[in-house]
């Protein structure tokens, strides 16, 4: 399945979400704003995040290890550099509130943030060290970025895809392959690959709709796969109807994380607080995001 290079070129100029763009501009023009507020805006916006990571992982820096969190990017590149990269992205403009594809941006952001929190929480369950858990949040945040790319640059075909998914109940990614020539998981993975993100992250995004018969050796992939499904259970996304019945999932899922989806969700300490915190930026501005 090929992702067109023209589409990947376009991604360089993809704008971020309107509310984040507003906040970046407001925070960077207020000399008294705290750096952690700016970091929070960036690391809760998939487009800002992916683009800052793109700069941080670019060939100009001889990284000893790849940069997968915004905190890491800030320490490595310096706060001011990250701030100005964010401003440069903000200067491109912002994603239209109402896109031609009829793609629900609010729903997309809610699903991405929920997946991010869940993937991080599952990482804790697997006793992944705290510093690495940040990568799991990023994986959740970015996993569906391909959908935004389609909505922005292939609006007509993506609208058709979304409608067919709604009417047929078939998984979105399968219809994408038919109508758009590749699916959002592949597109997101190719984008992350092109921008030199670490291999486990690329693989996790590529396979986030593919359970695998056995647990993969990549815990990031396992956590993202399950986190995505749990996120759809917590708040059913309109853009991507859930395609999996938990009964047909391979046994490793439940061996690794818990008996069934409900008990996995229940066993997560502080989940509600984390979700509320992660999605707090969504509600500011009267839901006009």
């Amino acid at each position, binding site marked *: 399945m090929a992702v067109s290079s023209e589409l990947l070129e376009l991604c360089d100029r993809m704008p971020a979400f309107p509310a984040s763009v507003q906040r970046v501009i407001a925070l960077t023009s207020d000399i008294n704003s*705290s*750096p*952690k507020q700016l*970091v929070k805006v960036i690391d809760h916006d998939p487009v800002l995040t992916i683009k800052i990571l793109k*700069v941080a992982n*670019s*060939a*100009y*820096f*001889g*990284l*000893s290890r790849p940069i997968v969190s915004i*905190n*890491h990017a*800030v*320490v*490595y*590149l*310096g*706060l*001011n*550099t990250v701030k*100005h*990269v964010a401003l*440069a992205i903000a200067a491109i403009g912002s994603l239209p509130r109402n896109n031609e594809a009829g793609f629900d941006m609010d729903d997309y952001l809610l699903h991405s943030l929920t997946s991010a929190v869940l993937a991080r929480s599952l990482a804790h369950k697997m006793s992944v060290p*705290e*510093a690495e858990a*940040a990568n799991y949040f990023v994986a959740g945040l970015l996993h569906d970025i391909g959908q935004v790319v389609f909505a922005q640059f292939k609006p007509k075909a993506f609208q058709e895809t979304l409608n067919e998914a709604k009417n047929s109940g078939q998984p979105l990614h399968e219809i994408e392959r038919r109508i758009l020539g590749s699916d959002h998981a592949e597109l997101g993975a190719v984008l992350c690959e092109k921008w030199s993100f670490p291999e486990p992250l690329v693989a996790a995004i590529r396979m986030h709709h593919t359970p695998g018969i056995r647990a993969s050796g990549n815990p990031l992939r396992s956590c993202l796969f399950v986190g995505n499904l749990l996120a759809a259970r917590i708040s059913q996304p309109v853009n991507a109807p859930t395609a999996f019945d938990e009964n047909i999932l391979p046994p490793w899922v439940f061996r690794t994380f818990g008996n069934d989806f409900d008990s996995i969700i229940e066993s997560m300490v502080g989940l509600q607080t984390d979700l509320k915190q992660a999605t707090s930026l969504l509600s500011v501005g009267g839901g006009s995001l």
Partner: protein
Amino acid sequence: MKVRFWGVRGSIASPGPSTVRYGGNTTCIELTTDAGHTIIFDAGTGIRPLGLKLLAAEQKKCAVCISHTHWDHIQGLPFFVPLFSADREVHFYGAFDPVYQKDLESILAQQMEYCYFPIRALELKAKLHYHTLHEGARIEFEDAVITNVMMNHPVLTYGYRVDCNGKSVFFSGDHEPPHNIYDSDDTFYGEYDQLIQDKVGRICEVANEVDLFIIDAQYTEPELLQKRGWGHGTFSSALAMARRAKAKKVVFTHHDPSRTDDQLDRIGAKLQAQRRSNDPPMLIAAEGLEIDLG
């Protein structure tokens, strides 16, 4: 290897009666390798007199390592006379700016545009070579090896290490010790702190056991509290890094433009008085200071 300081001031040149002993020119440091080759750290206003000296010398070739392109580190360049001489060869080393999306050549050419300077970069007669470095590069320049590491400053800044015949120098460029943006009770405090430790550790690894550690110490501790995020260190943060890198000698530089000679004398005396027994010898940079590393 020999080291000579031609400019020790930060931010802006500051001539006048109160800076006459330590000097008012901005950053420029000359290294002479054992085989007599010249490597220059930064092109502040101190590079003008250095250029006059080099023009009279036999050696036709030199390297200029630019830590970053803030004015006080490049402003002397249009007055660096070897650039105007056809028999000279100058190699520039520096970073690609990820925000500006421009390389060193474009940024340096910009300060010679029509409204800033009467001669265009295109009209310079010397053979000029621009080398964009990624972090962790290793450059062989004549009998020396140059390596670099990313520091913490509002613009992308490289620190450089030069090794020659078993002797070594590290120059920090401008550097502020990274500060944790989270409060100690925030969830991310610990993670962020670890990232800071990694970053400082990496710098100290590059500077490990250098014979001479030249570092930005623009502020005193109370001043830093007012100027956090401006990108500079203090005498004590600089000393802490030198200790961690196990440097064999430390020179504090990039003096604040408002710092008087008398203040620097007092700071120097205080540092000597507080010096621990296993601390490296410390010096405060002054224009004309020469250090022969043997």
